[in-house]
């Protein structure tokens, strides 16, 4: 097999949002016993990066990004368990604990962010919606997370973002985890006022912000 050609096929499948093909190629990589980290790094990662570039150029829009993220998730669902079975560590941009705060059951925006983070190399622990604040902290500690992402869609529930940061301070955990906030009523000013490390107003900027917080990009 010509590896370069194989990586190009992978890139094409993700860029074009062809989930079946992206999955079939991941299966083929495992069957052919290829170096799966190389497959991820030279096939899937450049693909999702190119999708991001197309978005920046205005050629791709959120639906295309989401379709490509679905391809990545589906392919990683094949590759990562194989890597784990072989005790091969996977490269990660960081571990993220994400959820919508207590009292708020809106979760489509949070799901988009989780999906885009996952597609861009973050390990994502999604706690769902209506999550108790102490659950975010407990899970972040258990998972040794790098980043806590809090979504809130109401002016009443955004207060939970402030409260979580206060709780981190009370527990002497402030600074141990980076905190990123988002949601319809939230803006950068609010994020700064409450002491959050990052803010994103959509799933795409969330990836950029998370990478900045992890020191991957500046």
């Amino acid at each position, binding site marked *: 097999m010509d590896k370069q050609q194989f990586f190009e096929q992978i890139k094409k499948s993700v860029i074009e*949002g062809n989930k079946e093909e992206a999955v079939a190629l991941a299966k083929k990589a495992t069957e052919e016993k290829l170096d799966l980290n190389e497959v991820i790094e030279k096939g899937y990662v450049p693909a999702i990066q190119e999708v991001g570039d197309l978005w920046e150029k205005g050629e791709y*829009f959120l*639906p295309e990004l989401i379709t490509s993220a679905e391809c990545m998730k589906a392919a990683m*669902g094949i590759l990562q368990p194989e890597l784990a079975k072989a005790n091969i560590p996977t490269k990660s941009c960081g571990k993220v604990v994400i959820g919508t705060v207590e009292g708020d059951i809106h979760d*489509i925006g949070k*799901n988009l962010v989780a999906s885009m983070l996952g597609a861009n190399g973050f390990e994502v622990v999604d706690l769902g919606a209506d999550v108790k604040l102490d659950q975010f902290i407990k899970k972040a500690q258990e998972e040794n997370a790098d980043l806590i992402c809090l979504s809130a869609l*109401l002016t009443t529930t955004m207060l939970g973002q402030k409260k979580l940061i206060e709780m981190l301070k009370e527990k002497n955990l402030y600074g141990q985890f980076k905190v990123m906030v988002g949601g319809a009523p939230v803006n950068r000013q609010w994020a700064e006022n409450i002491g959050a490390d990052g803010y994103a107003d959509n799933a795409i900027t969330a990836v950029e912000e998370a990478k900045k917080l992890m020191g991957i990009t500046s």
Partner: protein
Amino acid sequence: MSTLGRIENFKIEVEERRILRLIGYKKKENEINSTIKNLIISEKKKLASLMKPASIYTILDYEETNKHPVFEKAEKVALCICSIGSGAEQEVSELINRNEILKAMILDALASEAAGEVARQSDRILAQKARELNLWPSKRFSPGYKPWPLKEQQFIFRALPPEEIGVKLNPTSWMMIPCKSTPFRINFYSDKNLSTRKKY
């Protein structure tokens, strides 16, 4: 004296171009790829079988309200809760669990538009009721629009039996379940000059 009513016969037509905008497209409709267009069409069909649009309303005399300043000078006040039910939200969750995020996003956008349409149609019916009473309706306002705080949703939920259309209120965040629900008020004035509405 208050009256209580229910509206159920909605004709919901969601425009595809509005969905394209909601899901983030800035392109012209004819430049959107056919896969996305077909997904919108199929999710639209699915939504039709999942939603149960319904509204419940009451028309109170001013004296029967909690006399919040937003009701000032109103002869009567119509309070309404609209919903499309929880079917679409459940399906969105299931799609997400199956990693069908784009379908979930499209269905959620369609459901939001449908919920908005139920509110618009309910609004028109209630504005008409104001005119039948020889009163002049204001625009529709929901709690959370200044100067009517979100916690005032409690007042609407106490004045109506929202469980009849399957809606409940979280007592701390004032969030409605299902999410695709809208509460609002319309003030009915005897003085046309107090009405903020251009069309009746």
